[in-house]
Structure formats: C-alpha cells, structure tokens
C-alpha cells in the first residue's frame, strides 16, 4: 500500500517509507506544502518528464529558486526523479556551480582566469579578502557578502573582470573593487 505522503510526492519506493524514514519524507513534505517554489520546481521537473538524466538541469533550477541546495531540497529532488539521495548529493557536490551553503545578500565573483590573473586579479581578490575579512569561497558573518572566484568567465578582452551581483564589470583594480564592495555596506538590509 502506498503511503499517503508518497502518493502526494509521486514516489513509489516503499524502502524509504519504512518507519524511521518517515521523518525525512515528512520534513520534505512540510517544505513542499508551504512553499510555492517547490511547485515551480515540480513544473520544471515535469517539463523534463521526470527524466533522471535531467538531474543537473533540475538542480540548476532548484538553486536558482532557493539560492542554494540544502539537504531537504536535495532529498526532494531525489524523490521526484526516483534517484538515490547519494547520487543527487554526489552530483551536487561534484560541480563547482552548485552551493550547499546559503549565500550572502551580495555576491562578488573575482575571475582568476589566466588573462585576468596576469593583469592583476590576484591583487583585486586579496584587497577584497582583506576588507571583508573572509577568504574566497566564504560568506561574511552578517550574511552580507559572499566572495567567490571563477576559473574564467570568458571576459578576457576586458581583464581583469569581476562579477558584482551578476553584473560583469571590466578592468578592475583593488581600488575600484573596494569602492564597489564598500558601496554595498550601508545599503545592506
């Protein structure tokens, strides 16, 4: 007999619904019931007819909706695509683009591609690290700023480039980068 939660999730693997496992499913369901974003994600999964090879596409969408991939979200994706959670977790941790930690209000991605590097992007990164007192890959304690690096964003003609909140900005110097990051501070909420 199918578990009512399983029916709602369209999930048939009885293994995961044994006593003790129910907590997990219930937790995911709690999310799924109250949060519209899960609905959007489900529509997206349906677009791919629930195909398991669409896992990366689904994770992209999930990250776009939620900002990062928390465990419950990964479980939800696993149930929906009928994949073992280990597989979903394995893929999510393999690719640099996916983040399993919440991001700050603002993100700053310093390109460390070769063209940017020989034009001094390492100094730009060091300046921001010193100002924000975090290392690349970290988020400030007040959750205002996430500092990331990229391998190459293909903007080599205008190196060194930094992406501030999704906007590629050309020819950065430590000074211009600090001005931009400082400019965010008073406006943060």
């Amino acid at each position: 007999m199918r578990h009512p939660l399983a029916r709602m999730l369209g999930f048939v693997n009885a293994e995961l619904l044994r006593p003790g496992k129910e907590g997990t499913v219930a937790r995911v369901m709690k999310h799924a019931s109250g949060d519209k974003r899960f609905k959007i994600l489900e529509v997206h999964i349906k677009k791919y007819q629930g195909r398991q090879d669409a896992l990366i596409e689904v994770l992209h969408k999930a990250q776009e909706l939620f900002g990062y991939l928390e465990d419950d979200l990964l479980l939800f994706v696993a149930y929906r695509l009928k994949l073992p959670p280990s597989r979903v977790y394995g893929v999510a941790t393999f690719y640099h683009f996916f983040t399993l930690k919440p991001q700050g209000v603002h993100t700053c991605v310093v390109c460390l591609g070769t063209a940017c590097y020989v034009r001094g992007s390492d100094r730009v990164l060091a300046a921001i690290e010193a100002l924000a007192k975090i290392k690349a890959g970290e988020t400030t304690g007040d959750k205002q700023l996430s500092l990331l690096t990229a391998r190459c964003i293909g903007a080599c003609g205008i190196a060194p480039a930094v992406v501030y909140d999704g906007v590629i900005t050309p020819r950065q110097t430590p000074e211009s980068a600090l001005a931009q990051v400082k400019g965010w501070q008073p406006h943060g909420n």
Partner: protein
Amino acid sequence: MVIDDLIAIAEKEASSRKKTVIRCCMAAGCMSSHAEWVKAGLDKAVHDAGLGDQVEVRGVGCMRLCCQGPLVGVDPDGILYEKVSPEDAPSLVASTQGAATDVGRCDPNQPFFSKQLSIVLANSGKIDPERIESYIAAEGYRALHAVLREMTPKDVVDSVIKSGLRGRGGAGYPTGLKWATVAKTSGAQKYVVCNADEGDPGAFMDRSVLESDPHSVLEGMAIAGHAVGANQGFVYVRAEYPLAIKRLQVAIKQAKQLGLLGSGIFDSPFNFTIDIRIGAGAYVCGEETALMASIEGRRGTPRPRPPFPAESGLWESPTLINNVETFANIPPIIRRGAEWFASIGVGKSKGTKVFALAGKIVNTGLIEVPMGTPMRQIVEVMGGGAPGGGKIKAVQTGGPSGGCIAASELDTPVDYESLTRLGSIMGSGGMIAMDESTRMPEIARYFMEFCMDESCGKCIPCRAGTVQMHRLLDKIVKGEATARDLATLEELCELVQRTSLCGLGQNAPNPVLSTLRSFRNEYLELLRPETNGAPGLPVGSAAGNKEGS
C-alpha cells in the same frame, strides 16, 4: 519549409534593409561596458531625429576588438567607433546625415582587422544573432538544404574529409574521419553533441561564436546529423556563459518555428532536434567521456577509451562529438566547396583558426587567421605587442593543458604540428601574452593549482600527482626548494603525463615542462643550496623545510 520560402525570407530581409545600418556590438565583452545602454540610446536618438525609415539600429555579435568596447559600426560608410557611451548616441546618429562627430574612431584598416580572414566569424558583428531572418539573409541554412536535397550522407562525409578540417577543440583529430566512423556504425539511435564547455581560462572564441552566430552551429550540427544518421543533438554549454545560452535558446526556438529543426526538414525524411544541456562548472567536462557522463546527469568523470564515443557514447549509442568552431566551419565548407577550404592554410592544418588574444597585449579580442600564420604576426603586428612599450616574453597557448612559447620562438607558424613540437598545443585557441614582469614559475604554479582543483579524483596519478607537483612548485616559488625538489618535480611530470586516465592529467605537466624548457634559469635562481650536504627531506614533509624561511 522549402527552398523558395528560404529565398523569400532572404529577399524580404534584403529589401527591408534601410539606407544606413548602425551596428552595435551586443556580445558579452561590450555588454559589460554597457553596450545595451548604448543601443537603447541609439534607438532613442534615431526615433527623436525622425530617421526611423532611413536608419536601422542593429544589435550584432562580437566585433572583435573587445578592449575598445563598446564598438559601434556604421554602414555603408564602414566607419567604426570605439568606447561609445550612451551620451554619444545623438551625435553618432546625426553623423549618418553628414554632421561632424567627435566620437572616437577606430581604424578599421589597422592590422588587427586587415590581417584577418573570416570563415567562422564571417557573420559575427554583421548579423543580428537573435533573428533567424538575419542569418538566412546571409545564406543561412542553404547548406542544410543542399545537403538534404542534393547530397547523400556519404557525399557529405567525403566532402568534410576532402576539406581537411580538423577538430578545433584541441586535439586536432580529422573531423571527416570521425564522421565516417560514426556513420559506419550500425545503431538505431545515434547522437550529435556540440562541445561548448569552453573551460580553458583565456579562451572565449566559442562563447563569441555562440553569442554572435548561433545558427551556424545549429546548421552545422544538423548537417552532421544527416551525415552520420543521428536525429538528436545536444549542445553542452558552460553555465558561466548565460548570454550564449540565451541566444542558443532563442535560435533553437526560431529554427523550430520555421521547420529548420524538427521533423521532415525541407520536406525530406530527415528529423533533427537539438537540446541544450548546461554545465555546472567542471573543467574536466570538456573531456568527451566526462561530458557525456554530465549530459546523462551524472558526475562528470572520464572513462577509459576505447570504446570511443563514435562506437559507444551517450547511453551507449554511437555519438559524434565536435567543438563549436568545428561545427561552425561546416556550412561554409558545404556552400563553397571542400577544395576552397583546403586551399586555405598550410600542410595538414587547413582553414582558419579563431584565437582569443588576451593578457599583456595592446589589442585584446578575437582574431581569425589562416592556419600557418606566424605567431609573431599575431602577437606583435595584430596584437600590437605589450602595452606601455614593454616586451613580450612568452605566449601561452592551449590553457592549462598547453604550454608557454618563448619570445625567441615566435616565428613558429601556428598549426597543429608546429605547436606540438614546441611542447604546447593548439588547444581551443586561447592566446595569452605575458610581458617581462611575468615570472614563469609562478605561472606554472598557477596552472598547476588549476589542474589540482579541477582534477576529478578518479585516477590516482592526476589526483595525487597534481597536488604533489603544486606543492613542489609552491616551494620553488617561495625560494624553499632545492635541486632535489626540481628533479622530483620533473620526474613527477613524466609520471603523471604517462599514466593519467584523461587529457587533464596527461597534459597537466605541460605548463611546467614548457616553461622549464625555455626559462629554466628562472627556476634555478629560486633554488636554495642543499644544507650541509644532508639528504633533502622527502616530498610532503614541507613543514620541516619551512624552518629556514
């Protein structure tokens, strides 16, 4: 859709062409200098001046000289303006009516432009990449029609073999042979995959082609589908290229609407659909078996070959994988003939190659030159040499898998064999100039760090070897290494090169070996003498060695 429909679209596009066309670069480089505001400004200025029926403002793809962006071209006068700001728009529009303007001009006859030969980039900077009509007016989809109505799959494969085209993604495998292998395999389901996972830092040719002329890639893939007997294509593109993804999505949608993709293309029995798969930031996915694993929604780890993808690829079906630039070469080859293509280039390297010029060089941007062009011409004549009167010391080609070519070797012609002889590779086409201020051991460390981070971890030589090589390079750069460390490094380079599973590991030592070959002195200067003849500490116990620093 029949050929008459195609001609009708082209004619309609040509007849609706206005007297003056202002082309505004809308590729990622210029967009980051706010080219979209410039275009909006130009649109408004044309409207305000009441010139809507005479002047067309067209968003186009890359106009190549990225460092001077945003670039705006005016036809038919052939004037090119550089570093245009939105405020310049009214003056620029007035200039089309004969008024003077003080907007900075860029000389379209300078060597950077005049020495180029465009095949892949022929439409780039001319057509509107978001309108299929614009591509059709530039003879687009004619090659697909010719292939479907007049050529057998074997004719197509023969034509590609005769053209001498080789893979533009790095290794340079003859494209025609690859097609022939896939065509020969039996199998109900075959796939065509376009590798747009341009991961080499410093390379942005594929991004520009996808942003500037996406239909040429789609047309090339459809032709390949017909030639090898595939009905499904995938474009695997990096998530870091959002604009390229968007333009591809638009292009696929438009091609479907006109029946140029889908079922019964040009009233033939040929069906072909193309889906986009977005990467998620793993350099190793540029390797074909890793790329296929990623398309299947798995971790992007490579597997041993054989079996090659041509026999057993996506979901174990025969799969043809080519790079973006390779596919973009196909429609011109079909339209203008294999002989024409084979007449360009040198020796075993035919046609042109697109390079991304970047680094310490005056003119950064995209160039397309015939194969065999001397590197010196590209870097010094077209690129304008190092900025501020500096001297170019080396040119790095092929990304982390390539090598550094010293200034003294710059007279080498750019072709597959010559670059391999110098310990580098053609790679995808990134060319990064380095001037005298660049220290080579640091560059080697930089690339090794890249390979260390990007190693997928599947095979031990690459996983452990890159870490150890990076540690040794770090020691050298910090002046803590001895001659023994250098010897260990060289030994490891050879080991990793010979025993790694895929190209990432096999080529990871290239930057070290090529800089050691030409700039060994820079390494030797950083070594410290062996202390009191005592045996050096083994690699890995770096803590013991750090005491002296």
